[in-house]
């Protein structure tokens, strides 16, 4: 019998070696489990520690700023009796009506009359107890009630910076003694410092105000937003949705990323040479500050915008193209609304950075001493961070709390701006 050429198949497959069940209870296993749990705990603790530490830093900053700065919003006033009738100011009631009143009262020697009244009331150095601007408070009181000029009256006027500091507990021994003497006579009172919210810079800390810098920042931010937001968004849309992918667009992308990392002072120099030097725009003006900060903010918006646009699922574009939407309709009906929350987040970050920026504004002259709030984009102005920088540099002790108060105003501005942006972002998110 010849054997078949076809090899015989084994009737049963060889049994595979029996598999031992895994022993999950050995010492090595237990050790591995313990180490895994320990690693989890360590990681969680590290994370918590990081959060607690940053919260503590933030709380410390806020508490210190509030404690130091809150005094900047209040002032000390002293009750000053003035005998207007005896002073015989050469002003007619007619002059006190209308716009010439300030000039008439200044010309009539009201400042001297106030100083004289202080000397009468508080002694030889009485005039030094009052703020340089005390007579302005008297002037406003007279303007409100011209009948004062014919009689004796007591007006509450702001005290000098040294006295104000002594009342708030940081004064020199001499000033402390004066304060005790005045308090014993019941002449001192505290009140909200409205001038701080309404005035611009001054050399006297009792007369300074934050409004000038606030308005300067507001105008600057407005210019920045109006320029950087549309340009940034359109650049991002074009680069993501239309531009072909080639060496040029790669080069553009790298350039924009680098632009976002350029130190801000370089932008200040650029603004100085281009906007002031070549274009001849006015120095220290919000328009120049806004242009410079827009250059700085735009790349941030472009990068955030491109990422947000990339995040829109391609299926949405397919769906719109599939029923015959044109590329522009795809972008404006679908891609942009879906990307807008992300774009707005990028804009918040960019604008917040621009608001706190000091260096480029120094370069274009926004560090000048400007005693009147700007009334337009081309008026000389300063900005909040620059004002803080300038006041922190002053020797007069009275500026310490004004600096902190200005920081509070800057932080409130920042919070308001971010709050608005977050509100807008949420609105757009719920619409979809």
């Amino acid at each position: 019998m010849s054997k078949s050429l076809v090899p015989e198949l084994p009737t049963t497959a060889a049994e595979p070696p029996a598999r031992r069940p895994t022993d999950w209870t050995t010492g090595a296993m237990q050790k591995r489990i313990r180490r895994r749990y320990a690693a989890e705990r360590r990681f969680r603790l590290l994370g918590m520690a990081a959060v607690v530490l940053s919260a503590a830093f933030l709380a410390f900053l806020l508490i210190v700023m509030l404690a130091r700065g809150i005094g900047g919003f209040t002032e000390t006033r002293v009750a000053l009796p003035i005998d207007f009738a005896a002073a015989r100011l050469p002003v007619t009631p007619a002059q006190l009506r209308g716009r010439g009143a300030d000039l008439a009262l200044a010309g009539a020697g009201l400042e001297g009359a106030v100083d004289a009244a202080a000397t009468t009331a508080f002694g030889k150095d009485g005039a030094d107890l009052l703020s340089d601007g005390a007579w302005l408070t008297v002037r406003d009181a007279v303007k409100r009630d011209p009948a004062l000029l014919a009689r004796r009256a007591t007006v509450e006027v702001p005290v000098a910076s040294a006295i104000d500091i002594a009342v708030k507990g940081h004064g020199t021994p001499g000033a402390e003694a004066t304060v005790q003497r005045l308090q014993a006579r019941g002449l001192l009172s505290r009140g909200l410092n409205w001038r701080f919210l309404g005035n611009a810079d001054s050399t006297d800390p009792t007369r300074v105000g934050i409004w000038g810098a606030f308005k300067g920042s507001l105008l600057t931010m407005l210019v920045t937003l109006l320029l950087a937001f549309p340009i940034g968004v359109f650049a991002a849309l074009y680069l993501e949705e239309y531009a072909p992918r080639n060496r040029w667009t790669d080069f553009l992308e790298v350039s924009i990323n680098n632009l976002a990392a350029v130190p801000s002072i370089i932008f200040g120099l650029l603004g100085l040479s281009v906007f002031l030097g070549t274009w001849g725009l006015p120095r220290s003006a919000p328009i120049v500050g806004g242009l410079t900060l827009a250059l700085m903010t735009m790349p941030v918006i472009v990068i955030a915008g491109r990422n947000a646009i990339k995040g829109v699922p391609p299926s949405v574009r397919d769906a719109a193209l599939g029923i015959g939407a044109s590329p522009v309709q795809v972008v404006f009906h679908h891609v942009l609304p879906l990307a807008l929350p992300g774009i707005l987040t990028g804009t918040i970050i960019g604008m917040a950075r621009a608001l706190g920026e000091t260096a480029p504004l120094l370069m274009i002259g926004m560090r000048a001493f400007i005693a009147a709030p700007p009334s337009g984009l081309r008026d000389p102005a300063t900005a909040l961070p620059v004002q803080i920088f300038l006041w922190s540099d002053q020797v007069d002790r009275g500026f310490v709390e004004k600096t902190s108060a200005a920081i509070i105003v800057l932080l409130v501005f920042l919070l308001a701006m971010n709050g608005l942006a977050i509100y807008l972002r949420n609105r757009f998110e719920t619409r979809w």
Partner: protein
Amino acid sequence: MTSNHPPKITASHVNVFYGAKQAINDVSIDIGNDEVTAFIGPSGCGKSTFLRTLNRMNDTVPSARVEGEIELDGENIYSPAMDVVQLRARVGMVFQKPNPFPKSIYENVAYGPRIHGLASSKADFDTVVERSLRRAGLWEEVKDRLSDSGTALSGGQQQRLCIARAIAVDPEVILMDEPCSALDPIATAKIEGLIHELKGRYAIVIVTHNMQQAARVSQRTAFFHLGTLVEYGATSDIFTNPREERTKDYITGRYG
């Protein structure tokens, strides 16, 4: 063609390239007007690519290049005179993954008529929306919540919403790219029933991985393999008596 009607779409000698790679190799096919045509074939055979040439969706892929002629009612869709936006309104598309807009159900359906100016008054829009949703078999399920987001619907409902959205612009052809591959069997059965009802009103081309589905819904079937059209004929012939060995191997599950 077996019917006397002229074909709706005629493709002749179509080649598609992605960069240097050829995805479609010399495909010629006639697609009938009032029937369902199924494209079957293993993964990567080019059936979806070919489907996307029929409404020029491949234009959105920067590296894609199409050669040859594709005529819709005798008009070359790749000629410079053809307006792509209008073409896509005439040749609608339903995608593999349901992709409703993140807007209300009503807006999803009304969007197409709005951008093409097919309706003007609120009443017109209401009519179009209701008619499209009814045809897509979704009206009864959503009529009380038209302002809810389209993305809140179930997968099968979303896909029917996408079909309603495509129907709303009154297309002549509907292309479906594996419309049931992300759906469960019940939702799949609903879509298949819907395809039956839509047949005759629109020319329908469906790409599918599922041979039973092709057999159930289509009148004609085209088998693609490695970028070429291997066999094209009546569905009954393809599934019972294929001429080509490769078709037979695929249908009997030898590869794929």
